[in-house]
């Protein structure tokens, strides 16, 4: 498997979003990227996990846990390591271009060394069924953000597992935006393994027609003085069905932790469905946990107000949808990417201008 350093990519992909950005392209037989070694090392996954240094890095952070892909093997993938103190000024786009195979199975491993900082964006727009495993290991005082945009063809399925682990003073962040697929399932877990670490877990799921979309999330406060923030927004129309499960586990010795969870949902049709369930399991006794869930529709008063100023109904809808998701989308520091997300969400709901 060859690793090629390149600068001339087909940047027209995703509406030119990747132009002048860092990107890593993983094909069946090679990996191409434009990162310098100073910023990040790019490895073929199979080789990386044989490497004793990488093995040690993984072992140092990984907390044994099972997930839906525990017994599966992944052959195509990449391992990206941020060296100590490497702070990336731009997001890294990780792209798995479509191959001929009917099923796509890919794994991304991201290791953030001490004091490193970086954002990694994966976009899935495959026309084949996809299984995607992501592992993020954030070492002491690092901050790693993983953004996933799933906009696959609506005849496909998507199964995703994202496992995040934060060491002392590290921050792990997962933003999952799910638009595509006939059926998509995401399992996302954050292990807060070091004191003063924190996790941010945000997401948006949008369903239309007969789409089924689910997010099963789990945050484990394994030690004390850790914080977690979770905010999911669902928008469902037609006969679509959304599921949000938010589990928060606080271990027996994880005192003085703070956990906040929120899931808000908009139902835009009579037949759309949402199942939302917060599940808190708290074994420690000195903790602050808050959770909430709401289900509602677009406020007719707000719509009337916008329209009474001359704004056409479709544009008024789009402004209100924009307002609903902006809390999450605006967290993606890259403005081009955020605007592109807004556009894709509006297109998916047929409210784009």
């Amino acid at each position, binding site marked *: 498997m060859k690793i090629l350093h390149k600068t001339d990519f087909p940047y027209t992909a995703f509406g030119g979003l990747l132009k002048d950005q860092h990107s890593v392209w993983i094909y069946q037989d090679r990996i191409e990227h434009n990162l310098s070694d100073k910023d990040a090392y790019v490895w073929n996954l199979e080789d990386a996990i044989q490497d004793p240094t990488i093995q040690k890095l993984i072992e140092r952070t990984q907390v044994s846990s099972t997930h839906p892909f525990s017994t599966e093997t992944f052959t195509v993938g990449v391992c990206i390591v941020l060296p100590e103190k490497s702070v990336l000024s731009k997001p890294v786009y990780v792209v798995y271009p479509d191959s001929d195979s009917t099923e796509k199975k890919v794994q991304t491993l991201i290791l953030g060394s001490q004091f490193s900082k970086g954002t990694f964006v994966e976009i899935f727009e495959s026309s084949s069924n996809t299984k995607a495993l992501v592992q993020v290991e954030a070492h002491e005082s690092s901050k790693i953000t993983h953004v996933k945009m799933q906009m696959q063809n609506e005849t496909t399925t998507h199964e995703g597992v994202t496992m995040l682990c934060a060491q002392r003073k590290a921050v792990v962040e997962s933003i999952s935006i799910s638009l595509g697929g006939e059926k998509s399932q995401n399992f996302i877990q954050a292990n807060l393994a070091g004191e003063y670490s924190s996790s941010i877990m945000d997401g948006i799921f949008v369903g239309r027609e007969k789409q089924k979309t689910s997010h099963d999330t789990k945050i484990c406060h394994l030690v004390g003085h850790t914080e977690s923030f979770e905010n999911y927004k669902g928008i469902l129309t037609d006969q679509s069905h959304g599921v949000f499960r938010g589990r928060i586990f606080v271990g027996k010795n994880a005192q003085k932790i703070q956990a906040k969870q929120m899931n808000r949902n908009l139902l835009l049709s009579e037949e759309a469905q949402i199942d939302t369930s917060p599940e808190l399991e708290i074994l420690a006794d000195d903790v602050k946990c808050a959770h909430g869930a709401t289900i509602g529709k677009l*406020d*007719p*008063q*707000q719509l*009337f*107000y*916008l*329209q*009474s*100023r*001359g*704004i*056409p*109904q479709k*544009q*008024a809808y789009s*402004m*209100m949808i*924009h*307002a*609903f998701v*902006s*809390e999450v989308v605006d967290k993606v520091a890259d403005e081009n990417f955020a605007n592109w997300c807004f556009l894709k969400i509006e297109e998916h709901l047929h409210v784009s201008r």
Partner: protein
Amino acid sequence: MILEIKDLHASVEGQKILKGINLNVKKGEVHAIMGPNGSGKSTLSNVIAGRDVFEIDQGQILFQGKDVSDYSVEERACEGIFLSFQYPVEIPGVKNTVFLRAALNAQRKYRGESELDTAEFLRLIKEKASELQLKPELLQRSINDGFSGGEKKRNEILQMSLFNPTLAILDETDSGLDIDALKTVAEGVNRLRSSERAMIVITHYQRLLDYIKPDVVHVLSDGKIVKTGDRSLALELEKRGYGWITDGTEGKIQLPSM
């Protein structure tokens, strides 16, 4: 004639609220519509603006000679009808400037005028905001989100000034305002009085009419206009209450409670 309402009957969820309204408003005129709670004042303003929860059962609304009964809310706005809300709606997440520019450009597009770019728009809106002593930072916030009562009403008048409507309906603009805020809002409204524009001021109390002096005063009761007069009618209502008109009996002397 700017507005002609002919025998208008309207209901909400099967309940009849307006029971035969006739109203003619000419260019340059300011009409006050007064009446006790539940008489149909707010329904009338919402029906003119086109809110779809109200059903027009009978009658016509002619705006500059065109029957607008079948027009959508946004079409009426673009034609030049503006409603200042009694309770301006808060919309967290939608920035005031983004909203105002989208609205102004939608109206301009409808009228075949060129749209304003961001710089042109910001220049215009800042000028209008300073006339109303509206803090510039409120323009950068979400629509009415966390605004005080006075700020919300000034934001409404700001929109009226921006959209330059042919007909402005002010629904209970005085509610929730202290006397200083009331004066600022009334000054803003008075600046916008023009021979090309008509206004309908809907109010429960005469207080607002000390500052915005109407040409015609109507009393609405149980879905009908039961009395029409000049400004002196408003003063008389303040002294005598609504009872003597609405049920024909002599009302007690009633000072409006604020």
